[in-house]
């Protein structure tokens, strides 16, 4: 083997590593590096010129009741949104995957992705026009004469739920659709053939076989919903603080980068714990064993 061949051989052997290097570098530079910087900022003593002077004081400050309340609220809203999304998305995905004729599928899937063609902010703002005192719903109800005074809808918690469920629904439908579509139809036939009703078939075959989709969907909704700050501030009117809004507040308004960084790290850790717990709950709740065997 001459040098040229050796070099060629080296490139062929290590092609996987060579081609993935740009992506890995990108991750390093723009994800892990900033993350480390945030961790460092959360530990640095404010105003100190000494670079290695670190403290846990910021974290200690965060153990106050109000901060924990914000985190709990975010967890509850994110969990609620994820579960509501699951309940709304499952029938849609089921229908799309197992009932709709093949020639309609692509068109309907296209309709599902249509909201993403609109900017997120515009989507959220447009909800204000629907829910406002002189918005679409109130105007309609007043015109019909069902109500005498406009409903108070904007700036309520349930409005936040409504808008978030609306926005995150496709993130739940897509993974559910992709697993439900792969379920072999004869498995459902076999279940019915063995004496299971439609409902028993759904419970014992369809749901367990779509478990990976349920899991992915819940995480895809739960994680971003936890850090959501646009919807609470526009629809919720900034009345309630959420994790996302507080982080924005520290960095952009209060300019207290140390406390903001500490809060980011802390809520991030809690998010990881919640996601793992959610994952575990999925396994326990949905994977019902016919019989436990040792």
């Amino acid at each position, binding site marked *: 083997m001459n040098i040229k061949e050796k070099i060629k051989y080296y490139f062929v052997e290590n092609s996987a590593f060579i081609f993935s290097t740009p992506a890995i570098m990108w991750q390093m530079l723009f994800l892990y590096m900033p993350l480390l910087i945030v961790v460092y900022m959360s530990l640095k003593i404010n105003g100190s010129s000494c670079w290695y002077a670190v403290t846990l004081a910021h974290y200690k400050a965060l153990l106050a009741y109000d901060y924990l309340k914000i985190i709990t609220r975010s967890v509850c809203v994110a969990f609620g949104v994820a579960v509501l999304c699951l309940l709304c998305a499952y029938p849609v995905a089921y229908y799309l995957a197992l009932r709709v004729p093949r020639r309609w599928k692509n068109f309907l899937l296209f309709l599902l992705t249509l909201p993403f063609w609109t900017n997120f902010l515009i989507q959220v703002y447009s909800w204000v026009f629907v829910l406002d005192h002189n918005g679409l719903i109130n105007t309609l109800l007043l015109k019909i004469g069902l109500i005498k005074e406009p409903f108070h809808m904007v700036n309520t918690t349930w409005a936040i739920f409504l808008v978030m469920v609306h926005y995150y629904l496709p993130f739940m439908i897509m993974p559910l659709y992709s697993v439900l579509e792969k379920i072999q139809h004869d498995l459902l036939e076999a279940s019915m053939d063995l004496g299971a009703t439609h409902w*028993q078939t759904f419970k014992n075959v369809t749901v367990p076989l779509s478990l990976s989709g349920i899991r992915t969907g819940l995480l895809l909704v739960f994680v971003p919903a936890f850090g959501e700050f646009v919807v609470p501030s526009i629809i919720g009117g900034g009345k309630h603080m959420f994790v996302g809004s507080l982080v924005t507040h520290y960095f952009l308004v209060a300019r207290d980068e140390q406390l903001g960084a500490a809060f980011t790290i802390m809520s991030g850790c809690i998010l990881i714990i919640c996601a793992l717990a959610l994952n575990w709950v999925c396994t326990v709740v949905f994977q019902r064993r016919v019989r436990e065997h040792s």
Partner: protein
Amino acid sequence: MRNIRFENIMKSYNGDLILEKLSLEIPSGTFFALLGPSGSGKTTLLRLIAGLETVDSGKIFLGNTDITAMPIYQRRVNTVFQNYALFPHMDVFDNVAYSLSIRNIAPDIIEDKVLKILKTVHLEKHVYKSIQNLSGGQKQRVALARAIVNEPDVLLLDEPLAALDLKLREKMLLELIELQSTLQTTFVYVTHDQFEALTVADHMAIMNYDGEIEQVGTPKEIYEFPVSTFVAAFVGSTNLFKGTLHIVDGLYKIELPGLGLFEVTEQKGKSWACDKASVFMSLRPEKVEIAKTPMSGFSNMLEGVVQSIVYHGRSTQYNIALQNGMVIQVFEQNEEHFPQEVIDYDDHVFLYWQKENVVLLEK
């Protein structure tokens, strides 16, 4: 133990008529094979029994019960699916226990029944294995166990051995026969493979391309006495001749164009078998004797030239060109290592058969 009766079944898919005015009775406790080419509607017929399809019109009875509109999960009928359809998220035990567990039967009774049935199908060593770790034959057994554990009135098998290799298939066929005679359940076996059907069935029905039942009978009746050229050609192989029937002084003869007159037996009870009628003659390749020198004691004789020879192991197939240009098949058992008379390409040979061994057919 109850029989299955189809009465005037009509069934179509997207405007294509699959079954038209089909009537059939499957006797109770038999191993019944539905044999037909692909697209003959035999699987549709099976799915109608299971309840996986609904009829357009007509009625299906199981014993005296009209099951035409009965929901699938209420029928005491279970199916072994073509690609097994085992639940991938359950192990062997849970798959087999499925039909019992959804009926809320006590766990210890379920366990007894499942272990017993797994022993019957020789899977007692693989009770807690996951489905993914099973071989094709084992999956087949699990599917079988799952379908019979709840003791159905009828077991439906939809080309169950299609995915197995030849040796395993032969073994499973024998096991199926044994299982059926132990359980005494009605087995309905759908296949396009005539070898499988002839092997397992004690009764069988032949379906043609138009979804019609051509003939119902025992395998021997169907093979030896087919009622149409379709059955004769589809079950086993045969040589079909078109000719004209001549009846002279009560003697029946068939005139084959370019070959001459040949004796056939008296055709009793066949109204179409009259003088000068145009008929078909089916001559099975194994019913013909082949020789290089003339022999005596046969009622019919033809001469021809060996065109090609196909060695099958237990037998040899000779393709013989006749005087009128037609090529027919002849099977000879390979009885000896060193036959006295070796037949080779281009040899001039004599073909003999007895008149009792041919079947005359109207169409």
